[in-house]
């Protein structure tokens, strides 16, 4: 059975908005923010995302796990970019100002030897990337906590997707927390058989193979669960004709205003980017670090 995100009713300005307007706004923010590397502009987007988060009256306690998870992902990605230099050198800057050279370092697990040049550009790019990813994820994680799960399907239908795709999106949204629950049950069941995931050893392939006791049951359960869902839908005549969506969504003035703001920001961002504004910003004081 699919479970839902930890949604609860809150009488906030964010929850009173039409979910379609919120998704459109989120998409406009996403497509705007990815056009910039300038930390000053990215901080404005992060500010908008945090404003939405606080207006939704979400607490640290209820979102703690999500914050920890996305922070781990963002920090890993940013660190990798910083050490490899890939990403930035291709898109954001062409020359680098060296601060210090580290190395050669030996990478754990694979044992590769690498030298790392610490440059002003790499540092500024890493910070910008961090802010950019936080701006996007904070904007996105607010949605599952504040959109009624019963409205997922009708929201996507209202955004123009056909019935079947809209309901598939509804199921897919709820599939994520369901997968997390199944994973936790399987982890507990295997721990009760003396399995300790934290004590995995050997090379990468060996370690992945040793994850089978966790990955196989979760995957098989997801497949079997999907078959159950299909049977349950078939038994209640899903997809045989255009369906009625019993919940109705109507745009209020504030929703239209939000969409307009979103579109305006996107257009403005596109124009600025086209004019070459918003590329990686290197503060003069940071350049002074360089040798």
């Amino acid at each position: 059975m699919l479970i839902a995100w930890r949604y609860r009713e809150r009488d906030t300005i964010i929850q009173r908005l039409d979910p379609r307007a919120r998704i459109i706004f989120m998409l406009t923010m996403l497509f705007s923010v990815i056009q910039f590397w300038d930390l000053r502009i990215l901080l404005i987007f992060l500010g908008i995302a945090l404003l939405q988060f606080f207006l939704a009256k979400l607490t640290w306690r209820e979102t703690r796990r999500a914050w920890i998870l996305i922070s781990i992902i963002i920090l890993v990605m940013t660190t990798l970019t910083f050490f490899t230099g890939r990403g930035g050198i291709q898109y954001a800057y062409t020359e680098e100002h060296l601060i210090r050279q580290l190395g050669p370092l030996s990478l754990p697990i694979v044992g590769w030897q690498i030298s790392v040049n610490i440059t002003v550009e790499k540092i500024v790019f890493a910070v910008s990337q961090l802010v950019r990813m936080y701006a996007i994820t904070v904007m996105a994680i607010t949605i599952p906590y504040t959109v009624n799960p019963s409205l997922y399907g009708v929201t996507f239908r209202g955004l123009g997707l056909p019935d079947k795709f809209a309901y598939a999106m509804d199921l897919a949204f709820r599939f994520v927390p369901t997968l997390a629950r199944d994973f936790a049950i399987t982890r507990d069941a295997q721990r009760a058989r003396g399995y300790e995931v934290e004590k995995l050893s050997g090379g990468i392939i060996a370690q992945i193979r040793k994850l089978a006791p966790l990955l196989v049951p979760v995957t098989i359960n997801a497949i079997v669960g999907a078959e159950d869902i299909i049977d349950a839908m078939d038994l209640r005549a899903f997809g045989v004709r255009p369906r009625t969506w019993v919940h109705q969504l109507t745009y209020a003035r504030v929703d239209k205003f939000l969409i307009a703001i979103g579109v305006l920001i996107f257009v403005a961002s596109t124009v600025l980017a086209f004019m070459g504004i918003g590329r990686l910003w290197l503060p003069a004081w940071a350049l002074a670090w360089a040798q």
Partner: protein
Amino acid sequence: MAQFTQFPLSVQNLTFQYRTREQPAIEDVSFDLHAGELLLVAGSSGCGKTTLIRCINGLIPRSYKGTLSGRVLLNGEDASGLSLSRVSQIVGTVLQDPERQILGAHVFTEVAFGLENLGLPRDEIRQRVDETLDFLGIAHLRNRETFSLSGGEKQKVSLAGVLAMRPNILLLDEPLASLDPASAQEALALFRRLADAGVSILLVEHRVEDALGIRPDRVLFMRDGKIAYDGSLDGAMQVMDYRQVKLPAPVVIERAAKVPLPAFEPAIKANGRDPLVIFEDVTFAYESGAEVIHGVNMTLRQGDVVAILGPNGAGKTTLVKHAIGLLKPSHGRVLVEGTDTRKISVAQIAHTLGYVFQSPSHMLYAPTVREELAFGPKNLGFSAEAIEAGVDAALDAVNVRGLESYPPLSLSFGQQKRVSIAAILAMHSKILVMDEPTAGQDYWNYIAFMDSILQTPGFSAILFITHDLDLAICYANRVVLMHDGQIAGDGAPAEVLTDFDLLERCRLVPTSLLRANLEHLSVTGRFLSAEALAHALVDRKR
């Protein structure tokens, strides 16, 4: 061309063989169902009950492929010529596990789902949903999230989702399996009301005793895919095998007295009564702050065979997970052989305490049953010889010998369940803990493996969580009743289960076996299974 009969459902010479099987799942099945008739279909696993239901509701041949012959007529029309949407308006299906059927995030959207698919106007959908919720007495659940409902509530909500489409035939596939006894009684009363209101009901259930309370109009007993009996309830009582389906205790006592009693001698002996697991003032609250266990004190001792009973949500599983250290108490402590579970890992506790989870599919992963069974002992660092010996003993204990080279995930649910229990047995734990060991198992199988486990030497104590009062009567020497996160009763079955007010509070319903045991307690001195009771009474007469 439509053929007119007087029956809402007519099954004629139906045979179906799944594409992947070598034998037909059902063979030459024929019967009619009258309007407002409640037909009980009984039989053990593999008798073809579920395949029959799939043939009637249209999933066969649409979703499950194979060779089908014979006909299913719905209101006189051949079902093969009807669209699935038309079939779903005539036939409603409630599956064994409501969790596999509920799709909506909230009760209202769940009940409205089928009506939305039929494209009905919004006002009519709202009206039908509210009418159905009122009829089932669950209007108060309208805005609740479905995943937060209890088992009984989920069952009623899945029934509501089907009834809202106003079918005139209802197929109920073991609808009592996941319910506590009181919820099962409520569900049964509801089915009777529906039949009295004119709905034709086909109720598949191997716990025949439970279904008797609603006086089925007719009984169909299936064996090996064929109809072995079709007739009245009284006749069925004499024909059905009481080891394959669960019959009322007086019937079993009468019939079992004439056949030899199978040997059963529990291996656990209460020598020394040393404490093995001690729960000291255990309180547990989830991250959200909700406290689910309130100050529990309990000691599991050497020689105990404990049945933990109580309604859904009473905290049974939460309490027991503390014993293996998967949960740590918010206050108080749990000692396993004298060591605080906070100070040792789950893997260390697993040397002493084997824990069988409720759902086998959450733990089975290996390419073969043998490797699956060796996984736990390997993790615990057993020698190759000890692993081999443990695996062999476990294979025999749960009757899965012959399946060693099969992938566990390709087995039937009942076989998977037994493999999951064998996987823990192979670890040679002193204490065996099982969460709902009989869930999803047919009567014959769970009696067989409970007999076998209780007779397996090596355990110092066994603890199992169950909804089945008779399981506690037959196998436990101690019963713990839980209610609302606390222990409401703890003692020998003959002491605790005599308090009917307490049973009612814990949503348990006295069974015919309990009543028969109470009636003869002065003779037997302890609770016995129906077969053992029959022989005890015969011996006394002699």
